[in-house]
């Protein structure tokens, strides 16, 4: 076998790039979060200020409300996507003409840039241009205005996320359902189990690993949703759809208060890691132990 030196040489460019654009930014932002630094303030120097940034952060109403709406958004979006995705996957398990075409069409939103999804839904829902407000107004007399109604804006962002990402859940669950063995289901039917029993006792435990992996991925992606919301509502009205990523982009970044911004970034990263880890620890790890 060749000397290991060659191996390290081949690996080196990757490690160097990831070091400079992954590791260094992380430690840099960690270091900055304990400092006061605003280049355009009276004192433009970087000054160590201990936990002051975090002290300000935990009382920052803008950040806390952003955290709240993010949790609500992630919860509603991921929950609806998983439920909807499961039913669509079940509907795909049957034979019907043109299945491949429908599947292709269903996959389509996945490849689209988030910002394009945002722009599409902006065109759909902006009053007087979009078709949705017009139809709702004509048929139901309901005035949908994402520019003024916080609830409407929030709902539209959730629907947009569902439109964009449900196909991912559907397709992963199709893969999971298709790989299930037929025997347990036949046996259960012979034993006279009803549909609900079959779902809770056979289907769900068997697709659980794939389902959890999907939830996990969707959770991480939903937490980092920025582009489409930025395009659709810009975080408004007020702070109704200012999710954490949007908050950093719109509120934290333009104010050149870099020390405080670093603290926000670090806490967002922390919350993302904790959310994912909790899901892993609570749901996936115990199953591994049993297996």
């Amino acid at each position, binding site marked *: 076998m060749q000397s290991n030196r060659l191996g390290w040489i081949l690996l080196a460019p990757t490690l160097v790039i990831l070091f400079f654009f992954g590791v260094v930014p992380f430690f840099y932002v960690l270091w900055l979060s304990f400092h006061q630094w605003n280049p355009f303030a009276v004192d433009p120097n970087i000054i160590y200020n201990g936990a002051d940034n*975090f*002290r300000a952060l935990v009382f920052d109403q803008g950040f806390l409300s952003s955290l709240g709406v993010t949790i609500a958004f992630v919860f509603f979006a991921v929950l609806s996507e998983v439920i909807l995705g499961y039913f669509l996957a079940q509907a795909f398990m049957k034979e019907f003409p043109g299945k491949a075409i429908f599947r292709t069409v269903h996959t389509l939103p996945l490849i689209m840039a988030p910002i394009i999804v945002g722009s599409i839904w902006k065109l759909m829902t902006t009053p007087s241009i979009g078709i949705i407000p017009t139809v709702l107004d004509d048929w139901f007399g309901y005035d949908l205005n994402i520019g003024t109604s916080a609830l409407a804006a929030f709902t539209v962002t959730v629907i947009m996320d569902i439109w964009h990402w449900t196909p991912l859940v559907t397709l992963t669950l199709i893969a999971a359902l298709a790989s299930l063995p037929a025997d347990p289901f036949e046996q259960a039917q012979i034993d006279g189990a009803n549909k609900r029993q079959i779902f809770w006792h056979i289907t769900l435990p068997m697709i659980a*690993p794939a389902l959890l*992996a999907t939830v996990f991925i969707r959770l991480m992606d939903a937490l980092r949703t920025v582009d489409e919301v930025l395009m659709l509502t810009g975080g408004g009205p007020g702070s109704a759809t200012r999710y954490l990523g949007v908050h950093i982009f719109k509120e934290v970044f333009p104010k050149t208060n870099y020390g405080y911004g670093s603290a926000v970034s670090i806490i967002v990263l922390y919350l*993302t890691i*904790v959310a994912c*880890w909790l899901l*892993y620890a609570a749901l996936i790890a*115990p199953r591994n132990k049993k297996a």
Partner: protein
Amino acid sequence: MTRTDPQDIETPINLHEQEEESRQSPIDRKEHQGFLPIQTNWFDRLFISVVIWVALCLFWLRFLEPAGLSLNIAQVIAVILAVIIVWKG
């Protein structure tokens, strides 16, 4: 950065890898069942300690420091907790 995430995502590989690792160095990578509800290796426990440390400090800043308790108390508690978790978790 978030060293534990990939393990979370790709469970089968994670298991495999840890099996391999525990075979190579059974002393410091050993899976172990302490008072924590899941099996952990020393790195997992260190990670949990750091997570708890940060959470405790933030909680302290929000609710207890305005009441006059210094943040240093939180640090001491967090370090003690971390030692216990890494040792016995």
